[in-house]
């Protein structure tokens, strides 16, 4: 019910809010997509993926290559599709790696793909960057909103499904999961592909706001780390944790960049350190704790 009302507000927003708000919200949707997609795989399984920037970049380059040939929804889906393919390949190769090795390998992709692209562009097309087709802000707003909604619905049902349970059991004890009949490799790889799909689609959509991209712009390492921080800050135990983390972080980022551009990273860093030290279960964890305490007090009074 509440989500329905929020959705109606968000869909009609460009009709009454002009200028900056839809632009900011587009960024917020984008970061929600990135952090929830990251958390849908890395949260339950415990495999720390740092390939978000790689999947995002594949989406951006899909837009750069196909933007002038096909309409926005098509190249958005294509961006997601290509990212998912990269994730499936990488997943099949690397998901047997555990812990830190998986994290490092996935981050290696963020280094590898842009350099391959640079090599390709310089040797075969003779350019370094590319112009991307431009869409107006409202179109991008709706595109990002659509990905966001589809993703939230998918993740909502995934968490409640048999698949969600399988993923969770992999994070709890992968060996035991395999021995009670779960095809752990398949579950991990397909879920990794699904999470990359949304990340790639978001990359393709946002690229149309940037006019020009080169491999180093498209594959920005920060995109691998920010969603992780947002998800941890918000709390990964609940579906809404990464959402809240992404909203707060993106807003904070905008405010800090505009008001204290010099101190932005410093303040950001301090908030993070405090959050990780004092909120092991993220903001959601703190809220739940306060809620439980208030609830207990009410009962004690009665």
């Amino acid at each position, binding site marked *: 019910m509440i989500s329905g009302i929020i959705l109606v507000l968000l869909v009609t927003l460009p009709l009454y809010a002009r200028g900056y708000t839809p632009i900011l919200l587009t960024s917020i949707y984008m970061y929600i997509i990135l952090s929830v997609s990251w958390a849908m795989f890395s949260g339950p399984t415990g495999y720390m993926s740092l390939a978000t920037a790689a999947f995002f970049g594949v989406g951006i380059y899909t837009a750069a290559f196909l933007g002038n040939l096909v309409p926005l929804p098509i190249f958005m889906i294509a961006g997601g599709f290509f990212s998912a393919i990269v994730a499936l390949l990488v997943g099949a190769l690397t998901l047997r790696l555990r812990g830190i090795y998986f994290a490092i390998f996935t981050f290696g992709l963020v280094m590898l793909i842009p350099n391959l692209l640079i090599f390709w562009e310089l040797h075969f097309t003779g350019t370094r960057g590319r112009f991307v087709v431009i869409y107006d802000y409202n179109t991008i707003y709706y595109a990002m909103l659509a990905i966001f909604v589809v993703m939230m619905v998918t993740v909502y049902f995934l968490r409640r499904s048999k698949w969600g*349970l399988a993923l969770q059991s992999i994070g709890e004890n992968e060996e035991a999961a395999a021995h009670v009949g779960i095809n752990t490799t398949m579950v991990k790889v397909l879920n990794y592909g699904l999470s990359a799909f949304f990340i790639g689609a978001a990359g393709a959509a946002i690229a149309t706001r940037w006019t020009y991209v080169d491999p180093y712009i498209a594959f920005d390492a920060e995109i691998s780390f920010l969603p992780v921080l947002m998800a941890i800050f918000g709390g990964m135990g609940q579906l809404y944790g990464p959402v809240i983390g992404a909203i707060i972080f993106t807003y904070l980022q905008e405010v800090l960049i505009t008001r204290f551009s010099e101190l932005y990273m410093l303040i950001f860093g301090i908030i993070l350190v405090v959050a990780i030290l004092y909120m092991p279960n993220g903001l959601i964890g703190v809220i739940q704790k306060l809620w439980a305490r208030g609830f207990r007090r009410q009962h004690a009074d009665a």
Partner: protein
Amino acid sequence: MLEGEGVSKNFGGLAAVSNVDFHVDEGEIVGLIGPNGAGKTTLFNLISAALTTKQGVIKFKGEEITGLSPNQICKMGVARTFQAVKVFPNMPAITNVYIGAMFGTPSRVPSAEAARESEELLEFVGLSAAKAAPASDLTLANQKRVEVARALATKPELLMLDELMAGLNTTEITEAMEMVARIRDKGITIFMIEHVMKAIMGVCDRIMVLHHGVKIAEGTPQEIANNKTVVEVYLGE
């Protein structure tokens, strides 16, 4: 039902299991004993595909299972528990079992049916009271029961128990022995590794002895107790 021929596994230069032939017949309780490092758990790992080997053939109900993955072996009807318990620690006991019921069989199981089976199995292992507790909060004995219930939820024909009784006190051992007998009464064949002699002598129909990866004896509990080599291995010459 389960047979192995010339099964070997080396870790580097060490032959953990070398050229072992074994068989477990339907309805039996077969014990696997041997000193620490004899290769018992390695043999279990080879059967359940936690480890792979190219030497030797393992067959289940006449079909070769070497080279399959653990989830396939589970679906064929071979379930196991672990020496070092591997429960899903943050999940309630009942969910641990439910996962076995949902994923462990080749056919789709409706979730209501899986939930009902999980309840029944927790009751069977005597854990109904603790079903909502996270598995990590349970005592070792109870975590082992969760593992047994979870393994049973996959509807196995053969259940492999890896040191079910290690670390349990006398009362718990008696209960565990009684549970093993009840599992057999369900028509499930049991292959068990055990160090607790009283337990293994009490419940097994047949016992196999491994030493340094080699099978040195096989027979009824009585024969094993009187076997000179076995006594030497355990007590020294």
